[in-house]
């Protein structure tokens, strides 16, 4: 059953020392089986999207939905289908697995800002944070044969900018996307 809520204004701190003020005008779409609630505005420059995710099994659908939200603005590019998908998926998975320790009562908040130059994505968990500088480089010869450490590496390789909050429980990813289509196109 779908439901709608009125818009709300919010201030968000976006990575590092830069403050970003967002105005959210959104329609809440309630998921019939209660898997997660996703907030989709009309897809346009300056628009926002929000997803609240609790479990690993929700990631694929949520990331697909976010891509569908961005595609009308930036076009269907490989950078959106691949770079964005990988970077955001890895950030969300890390947040659920390590940040929230797979606690189903905790949420991962994924906020998108669709800017002229591209997309800003902020992924925030309810964990204690960590020090990303301590994550080893998985491409070093001594690490290639290990099964871990590739998530953050892939985020850094495929997104144009990756910044962790001081606490380490929030990461902001930036992806430059130059292709744009009709900005008044609506996402589904």
């Amino acid at each position: 059953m779908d439901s709608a809520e009125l818009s709300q204004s919010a201030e968000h701190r976006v990575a590092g020392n830069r403050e970003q003020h967002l105005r959210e005008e959104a329609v809440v779409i309630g998921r019939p089986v209660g898997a997660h609630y996703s907030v989709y505005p009309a897809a346009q420059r300056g628009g926002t999207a929000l997803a609240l995710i609790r479990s690993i099994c929700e990631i694929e659908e949520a990331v697909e939905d976010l891509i569908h939200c961005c595609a009308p603005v930036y076009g269907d590019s490989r950078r959106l289908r691949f770079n964005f998908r990988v970077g955001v998926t890895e950030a969300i998975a890390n947040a659920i697995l390590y940040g929230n320790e797979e606690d189903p009562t905790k949420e991962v908040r994924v906020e998108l800002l669709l800017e002229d130059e591209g997309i800003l994505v902020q992924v925030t968990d309810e964990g204690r944070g960590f020090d990303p500088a301590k994550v080893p480089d998985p491409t070093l010869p001594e690490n290639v044969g290990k099964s871990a450490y590739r998530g953050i590496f892939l985020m850094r390789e495929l997104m144009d900018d990756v910044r962790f909050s001081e606490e380490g429980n929030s990461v902001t990813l930036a992806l430059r996307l130059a292709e744009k289509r009709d900005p008044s196109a609506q996402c589904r």
Partner: protein
Amino acid sequence: MPFSVRRAGEATVVEVNGQLTVGNRQELKDIVLECLEEGARSFVVDFARTDYVDSSGLGVLVSLSKKIREAEGELRLSSLNMDLQTLFELTKLDTLFQICGNLEEALASL
């Protein structure tokens, strides 16, 4: 079903359908370890119908590679699309695995 398993001569072929991610990596691990216990030693993991592998999926492949090697077996990966090939190259896993263009080539190399 995310994984299809079949025999091709002496080889065990595991086809990944859709995605190999943190959500189903354990299932792949269980399948291959069970085959190892039953005596299988030659494996091909085929990605012809795979559109996405995440870092956890890459990790389980690394882990399985080690297990198979310890059992004196062999592992090939086959049919990676451009995106998957990029992931393996970025992470330098193309230096760890023997990657073949298609399943036939992989089977012929075993």
